[in-house]
C-alpha cells in the first residue's frame, strides 16, 4: 500500500504539472482547453524525435547520468521541446482562437474549437510517428530498495524533483516577475489591466507559451516514466480536469493539491481495480467533487439555476 | 410617512447582502403597498439593483427576510419567485438574441401547456389555442411599445433603446402582482417616455398591478410615483410623497453630499 502511495506521488506530480498549466491557461483565456493533454503529447514526441533521431544522426554521445535512464541529450531536448510546444500553442491561438475573440464568439465555440484542435494534434502525431508505443530508452535501470518494501526507480525521483522545481518556478514567476504579476492581474480584471496599460493580447501569448511549455515538460516526464502513445494526451484529459476542478479551476495552487490527490487515489485504486480503470477513477472523483463541493470549487457566489 | 402594514404586498425586513467584504445592502427594511407605484431612488451605489436581485431570487440575502403576500420568498430560486407573482426587468437589456421579438414575448406567459415535454403531440389543440392567445397578447404589447413592425426581427438586431422597450414589453406579457422595473426610462426617447408612464399608470389602475421601479429620471419619479423611497449606503433613508421627498433635508444631503450622518 505504501508503495502504491509512493507511485501515486510520482504520477500525482506529473498530473499536478499538467493541471497547474491547464488551470493557468483557463484563468486567462477563460475557456476549458480540451487540447491541453495533446500539448503534453506534442512535447513528449518532440523530445523523442530529438533524443532518438536527431541527436543520434548528429552523433551525440548517448551517455546516461549515473542511475538515470537518460543523459545529456534529454536535458538538451527538454528546452527545445518546451519551445516547440509553446510555438504550437501560440500558433493555434493565432489561427483559431484569436479570430474567434475578434468576432466575440460565445465561450462554447472556443470549447468546441479546442476539441477540434485536440483531435487534429493527435491525428498529426499518428501520421508522423504511427500508432505504436515508443520508449525513450529500452534500457532497464534497477530500482532502489527503500524501507517498507518501497521500490523507487531513480528516474522517478528525478520526475518528482523536476515537477516540484517547475511548479515552484511558476510560483516564483507569478509572484515575483513583472510579467507574472501582469498575468495574475489580467486573470483578475482584464478591463482594469487594459486601463493600466497592459496589452492583454501579449498576456495571452505569454499564457499559451508558459502553459504549453509546462505541459510539454509534463508530457516528457510521463514519457520517461511510462511510454509515448499518440493518445496519451487524451487519456490524461480526465485526470487533468478532475485535478483542476478539485483544486478550484483557475487556481494554480489548488491544482497542485488536486493533481497529487488524483494521482495518489488513482494509484491506490489499482489495489482493487484494474489499472486500466485509472481514467474512470478520476471521473468518479470529478463527479463526487461536483456533487459535494461545486460552490467551494467555483469559488464564487454565482448561483446555478 | 406612516405605512399601513396590513396592505403591504412586499415586506423587506432587515435584509443584508455583502460581496467579499463590500456591504451592498445592510439593515434594509421597506414595504411596498398594494396598488401603488413605488419609486426607488438613491445615488449610484446605494444598493438599489442589489436589492432587486435579492427580491427576485438571483441572490440569497445574508440576513433578514423578504415576505411577499404573506409568504417568505427569500432564498427561493428566481423561477419560484416569479411564480409567486413577482416579475422584474433588467437595467442592461437582456434580449434573447437569436430569437425573434415576438418569440421573446411569447416565451413569457405562465401556465403554457405547450411547455410540457411532448404536449405538442398529446394536446395540440390546447397548445395551439394558448399560442393564439399569447400571440394576440404579444401583438397588443408590441403595438403599444411601437415595436410591432419589428416583430419578426431577431432581437439582437434591435437598437439599444428598442431592446430597453423589449425588456418592458416582456414584463407586460405577464399578470403578476408586482412588477419591478429597473430604470425603464433610460435610453427611451421623450415622446415614448410619456406614453410609457401612461401605460405604467394604466397597469396599476386597470389591472391592479403594483409597481416598484428604480429610476434616475426625476421627472418620471416625481410625476409617477407615490410613495418614493430613498436608498443610501445600502439602507432606506427616507420615504414619502414626491413633495415630501423633495423637501427632505436628509435626502438633499444624501444626493448633494455633506451632512448626511
Amino acid at each position: 500500500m505504501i508503495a502504491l502511495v509512493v507511485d501515486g506521488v510520482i504520477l500525482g506530480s506529473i498530473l499536478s504539472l499538467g493541471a497547474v498549466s491547464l488551470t493557468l491557461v483557463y484563468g486567462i483565456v477563460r475557456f476549458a482547453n480540451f487540447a491541453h493533454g495533446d500539448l503534453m503529447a506534442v512535447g513528449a514526441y518532440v523530445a523523442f524525435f530529438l533524443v532518438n533521431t536527431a541527436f543520434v544522426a548528429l552523433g551525440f554521445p548517448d551517455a546516461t547520468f549515473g542511475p538515470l535512464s537518460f543523459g545529456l541529450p534529454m536535458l538538451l531536448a527538454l528546452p527545445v521541446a518546451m519551445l516547440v510546444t509553446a510555438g504550437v500553442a501560440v500558433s493555434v491561438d493565432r489561427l483559431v482562437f484569436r479570430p474567434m475573440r475578434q468576432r466575440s464568439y460565445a465561450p462554447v465555440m472556443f470549447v468546441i474549437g479546442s476539441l477540434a484542435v485536440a483531435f487534429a494534434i493527435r491525428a498529426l502525431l499518428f501520421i508522423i510517428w504511427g500508432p505504436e508505443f515508443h520508449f525513450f530508452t529500452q534500457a532497464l535501470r534497477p530500482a532502489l530498495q527503500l524501507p517498507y518494501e518501497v521500490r523507487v526507480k531513480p528516474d522517478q525521483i528525478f520526475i518528482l524533483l523536476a515537477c516540484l522545481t517547475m511548479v515552484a518556478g511558476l510560483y516564483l514567476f507569478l509572484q515575483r516577475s513583472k510579467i507574472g504579476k501582469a498575468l495574475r492581474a489580467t486573470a483578475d480584471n482584464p478591463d482594469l489591466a487594459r486601463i493600466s496599460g497592459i496589452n492583454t493580447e501579449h498576456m495571452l501569448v505569454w499564457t499559451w507559451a508558459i502553459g504549453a511549455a509546462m505541459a510539454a515538460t509534463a508530457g516528457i516526464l510521463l514519457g520517461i516514466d511510462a511510454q509515448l502513445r499518440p493518445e496519451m494526451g487524451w487519456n490524461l484529459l480526465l485526470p487533468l480536469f478532475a485535478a483542476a476542478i478539485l483544486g478550484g479551476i483557475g487556481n494554480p495552487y489548488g491544482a497542485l493539491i488536486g493533481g497529487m490527490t488524483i494521482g495518489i487515489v488513482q494509484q491506490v485504486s489499482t489495489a482493487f481495480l484494474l489499472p486500466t480503470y485509472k481514467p474512470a477513477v478520476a471521473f468518479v472523483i470529478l463527479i463526487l467533487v461536483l456533487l459535494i463541493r461545486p460552490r467551494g470549487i467555483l469559488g464564487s457566489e454565482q448561483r446555478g439555476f | 410617512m406612516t405605512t399601513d402594514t396590513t396592505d403591504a404586498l412586499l415586506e423587506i425586513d432587515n435584509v443584508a447582502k455583502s460581496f467579499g467584504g463590500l456591504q451592498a445592502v445592510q439593515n434594509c427594511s421597506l414595504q411596498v403597498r398594494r396598488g401603488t407605484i413605488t419609486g426607488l431612488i438613491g445615488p449610484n451605489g446605494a444598493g438599489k439593483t442589489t436589492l432587486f436581485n435579492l427580491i427576485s431570487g438571483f441572490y440569497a440575502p445574508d440576513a433578514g427576510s423578504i415576505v411577499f403576500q404573506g409568504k417568505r420568498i427569500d432564498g427561493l430560486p428566481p423561477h419560484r419567485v416569479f411564480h409567486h407573482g413577482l416579475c422584474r426587468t433588467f437595467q442592461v437589456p437582456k434580449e434573447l438574441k437569436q430569437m425573434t421579438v415576438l418569440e421573446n414575448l411569447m416565451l413569457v406567459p405562465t401556465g403554457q401547456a405547450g411547455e410540457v415535454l411532448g404536449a405538442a403531440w398529446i394536446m395540440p389543440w390546447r397548445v395551439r389555442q394558448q399560442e393564439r392567445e399569447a400571440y394576440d397578447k404579444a401583438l397588443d404589447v408590441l403595438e403599444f411599445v411601437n415595436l410591432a413592425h419589428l416583430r419578426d426581427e431577431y432581437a439582437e438586431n434591435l437598437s439599444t433603446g428598442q431592446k430597453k422597450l423589449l425588456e418592458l414589453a416582456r414584463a407586460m406579457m405577464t399578470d403578476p402582482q408586482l412588477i419591478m422595473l429597473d430604470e425603464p426610462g433610460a435610453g427611451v426617447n421623450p415622446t415614448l417616455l410619456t406614453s410609457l408612464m401612461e401605460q405604467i399608470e394604466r397597469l396599476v389602475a386597470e389591472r391592479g398591478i403594483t409597481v416598484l421601479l428604480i429610476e434616475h429620471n426625476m421627472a418620471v419619479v416625481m410625476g409617477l410615483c407615490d410613495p418614493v423611497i430613498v436608498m443610501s449606503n445600502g439602507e432606506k433613508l427616507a420615504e414619502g410623497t414626491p413633495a415630501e421627498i423633495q423637501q427632505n433635508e436628509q435626502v438633499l444631503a444624501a444626493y448633494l453630499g455633506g451632512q448626511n450622518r
Partner: protein
Amino acid sequence: MTIEAILSSGILNYLVGFLIVASIYALFTLGLNVHFGETGLINFGVAGFFAIGAYTAALVTKPLPTGELARYTQQALGLDQPFLVGVIAAAVVCGIVAVLIGIPTLRLREDYLAIATIGIAESIRLVFNNEQWLANGSQGLVGIPRPLYDLVPPAYYNYIYLGIVVLILAFVAVLLERMIRSPWGRVLRAIREDEVVAAAYGKNVFGFKLQALVLGAMVMGIGGALYAHNAGTISPGVFEPVFGTFIVWVMLILGGSGNTKGVILGAFVFWAIWAGTQFATDALVPPALSARAPYFRFLLIETLLVLMLLFRPKGILGEERFVSTLRPR
C-alpha cells in the same frame, strides 16, 4: 438487366450501405441537436450514449450463448427479445444515464457537462473493454440478430434494413421537430440564449436542461441500437471518440446547428465527404503510409470543423427564424 441484377450490383449495394450508416449518424446528430443546437449543452460524450445504446440493444435481443459458443462468449444477460424491445430498452437506459450525469453538472457552467460527458464516454468504453462477464470484453459481441432477416434472401436484406432505419429516422425527426418547435422548444432556446432571462420569467432552467439532456440521449441510444443491428457485431473499439463523438459534431455544425432538416442534411453531406476522402487518400497517400491514411482523413475533418466554426458557424441551412410552428401566422 434483370431487377435482381440491378439490386445486387456492387454500386447500389455500396449506396445502400452508405445510406444506412448516414441515417444512423443522422440520429446521433438529431440527439446532439437537442443538446447543443437547441439548449446549448455541450455533450462531448456522444460515443458513450452510442455505446450504451448499442450494447443494450445487443444484450436485450441476443439469446444467451449455449453449447460450444458459451465457452468463448460471455455476456451478463441475453433476453432474446424482439428488435423493437431492444431499441426501446436502448433509449431508456441512455435516458437513465443522462439523468445521472445531468444532476451533478447541469447547474454548473457549461464546461463541466463537457468534461463529465467525456468522462462517461471513456468510462463506458473501459467497462465494456475490461469486464469480460458483461459483454465479452474487448472481443465484443457477434451475431446480433437482424430484424426481418428471413423476409428476403440475404443478398437483398440491406434494402429491408435501410427501410427500417429510414422509417425510424423519419419518425424520430418528425417527433422531435414538432416538440422543438413548440413552446417547450422555445424555452430550450431561451435557455441557450440567456438562462438568467429564462429563470427570471419563471422557467425551471435545470428541469428543462435535464429534459433536453435525457431526450437527446434517448435518441442517441436509438441510433446506437440501429448501429448494432446493422453491424451485427460490436466491440469497444467502435466507440472511440473520433468516430463516436467528433464526427457527429462536424455533421451538426456543417448542416446547421438548431435546424432539424439541416442536421440531417449535415449527416448525409458529411458522410458523403467522408466516403470521398477515402477514395482521395487511397489515391494520394503512398502505400508505405497507407496504415496511417485514416489519420489524414481525421486531420481533414478537424480542419473542416475549425473552418466551419470560423467562417460559417451557422452551417449550410442555419436556424429557422421561428421556433414555434403552432402559433398563428
